[in-house]
């Protein structure tokens, strides 16, 4: 069983996130929505009307950015966009304007004639998104769109996406295993082994956790855990390498924690703000960053 107990609704114009580790079924969900995979059961409906399995014409309304690059590296950015215009039947007289618009969106107007193979990873990713938007779809599916991008490219990609979404009233469904990406969504579905464990806005999900997280490393984590629960009555989780303690005022708790243990018992102590990764761990019992066993249903 790959997808079981998966149930969510996406509102028009929202950025909906599918948050889960690699192998949790996120890409499969997107491929099913796009009609790239057959369903053996369940329903996908649009405005309350059930969609038959993979109508080619429905794909006209969908733009999709795949996890693996789908551009032809031997062709220029402009040629790649022009081929996409052909694929979506965009008339010749509209093409130039649309290509220019999308090159502007991707910030590649000046480099439109360069081979895609010569562009940087961030530029290629922006071009992938531009390619998915050129036929003006009403739904944009993004499968791990910022995987492998550095922080600056990540922020830049999201900045451009936000601008585009506001100007076009487009619905975005995004799959990600990055908590900082999930936090940018209007709502998030926590996906665990092919089922939705929670569907809520990031703010509401974050409310289920305290503000701060203290990560403790030490030789005997189980003993440290027992002491923390006994002495401080705080919610704590033992991970593979560290103990996580939820608290409201971490900076006040840290001196008390340190003094309650003998020297050498704790090897490191780290204070940080709680994130969707912690919510994921709390709900599912395992880490967002961990890879699950690969699932069936790959396209290749």
């Amino acid at each position, binding site marked *: 069983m790959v997808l079981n107990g998966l149930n969510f*609704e996406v509102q028009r114009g929202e950025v909906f996130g599918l948050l889960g580790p690699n192998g949790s079924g996120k890409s499969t969900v997107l491929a099913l929505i796009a009609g790239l995979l057959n369903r053996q059961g369940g329903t996908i409906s649009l405005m309350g009307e059930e969609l038959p399995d993979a109508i080619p014409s429905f794909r006209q309304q969908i733009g999709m950015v795949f996890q693996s690059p789908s551009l032809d590296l031997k062709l220029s950015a402009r040629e790649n966009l022009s081929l996409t215009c052909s694929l979506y*039947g965009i008339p010749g007289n509209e093409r130039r304007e649309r290509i220019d618009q999308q090159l502007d969106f991707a910030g590649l107007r000046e480099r439109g004639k360069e081979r895609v193979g010569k562009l940087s990873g961030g530029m290629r990713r922006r071009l992938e998104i531009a390619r998915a938007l050129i036929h003006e779809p009403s*739904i944009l599916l993004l499968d791990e769109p910022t995987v492998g991008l550095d922080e600056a490219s990540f922020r830049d990609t999201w900045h451009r996406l936000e601008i585009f979404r506001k100007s076009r009233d487009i619905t975005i469904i995004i799959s990600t295993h990055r908590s900082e990406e999930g936090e940018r969504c209007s709502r998030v579905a926590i996906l665990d082994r092919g089922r939705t464990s929670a569907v809520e806005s990031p703010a509401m999900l974050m409310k289920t956790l305290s503000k701060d997280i203290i990560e403790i490393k030490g030789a005997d984590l189980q003993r440290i855990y027992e002491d923390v629960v006994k002495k401080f009555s705080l919610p704590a989780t033992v991970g593979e390498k560290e103990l996580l303690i939820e608290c409201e005022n971490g900076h006040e708790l840290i001196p008390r924690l340190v003094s309650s243990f003998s020297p050498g018992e704790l090897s490191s102590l780290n204070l940080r703000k709680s994130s969707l990764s912690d919510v994921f761990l709390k709900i599912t019992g395992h880490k967002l960053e961990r890879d699950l066993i690969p699932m069936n249903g790959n396209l290749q």
Partner: protein
Amino acid sequence: MNINTETTPEKIEIVEKSDQITFDRGMIRALMFRELLRLRGDTLRWIALLGQPIIFWLILGKVFGTEWKVNGVNYAQYFFAGTLMIVILFTSIGTTMSLIEDRSSGFFQGVLIAPGRRFSLVLGKVFGVATITLIQVGIVMFLAPYAGLSFNKLFSPFFIIFVVLNTITLTSMGFCVAWIVNSTQGYHSVMNVLFLPLWALSGAIYPLKGGIIEAINKFNPMYYGVIGLRAALEKNTPFQWDNFLYLLVLALLLLTLATFLCFRIRRTVHE
């Protein structure tokens, strides 16, 4: 599994049949032009595709050609149809090999998400290869006068039809092999143990006879292809309708098989 999405109501209408044809046509055009765009500027590919057959023809055709007569014509002339067949073969299999790269690099995902139907994908690829083949055959035809043949045969409808039919059969065969094998090493192996022997047995090099060879040639598209090309090029080789029909049927069967395999990319996911 239950997924609901909400968007503008007018968007969920199924597109008109004429729109679907527009998408299919667009997919064919996109894939066809892609082949041409990729070839442009790829000097090494041009050298590899044209150099090998020309060298073959120069060595075999010209060295043995002046002395040796086969079927009443000198060997240089006899081998010319075989040379053209290997140009078509190399172009077809060389281009369909890119399918393996396309599938692994993800380019095809971008095509499969488009609203065109799957048969358009196969047709786009085949038409793209056919166009490249015609260009390359056109270049090789400049050698025709040196073999005692007319360059103007390039513009004969029969000649063009046979070049296109040969391209369809070989591209479809290459498409099927690339789709099934899905590795460049495997594809090269199939080329060496299947395609090149079939070319050699087709009568491209010498008119081979014998029980087993004749039995294999009954299913060998290149056998009918070479006969067709020879009939279109040489004055003393008559055109055979049954040969043309066999090639046509093989072309359509292989094209259908390639389309069927392409449909199979949609895998089933258990819910």
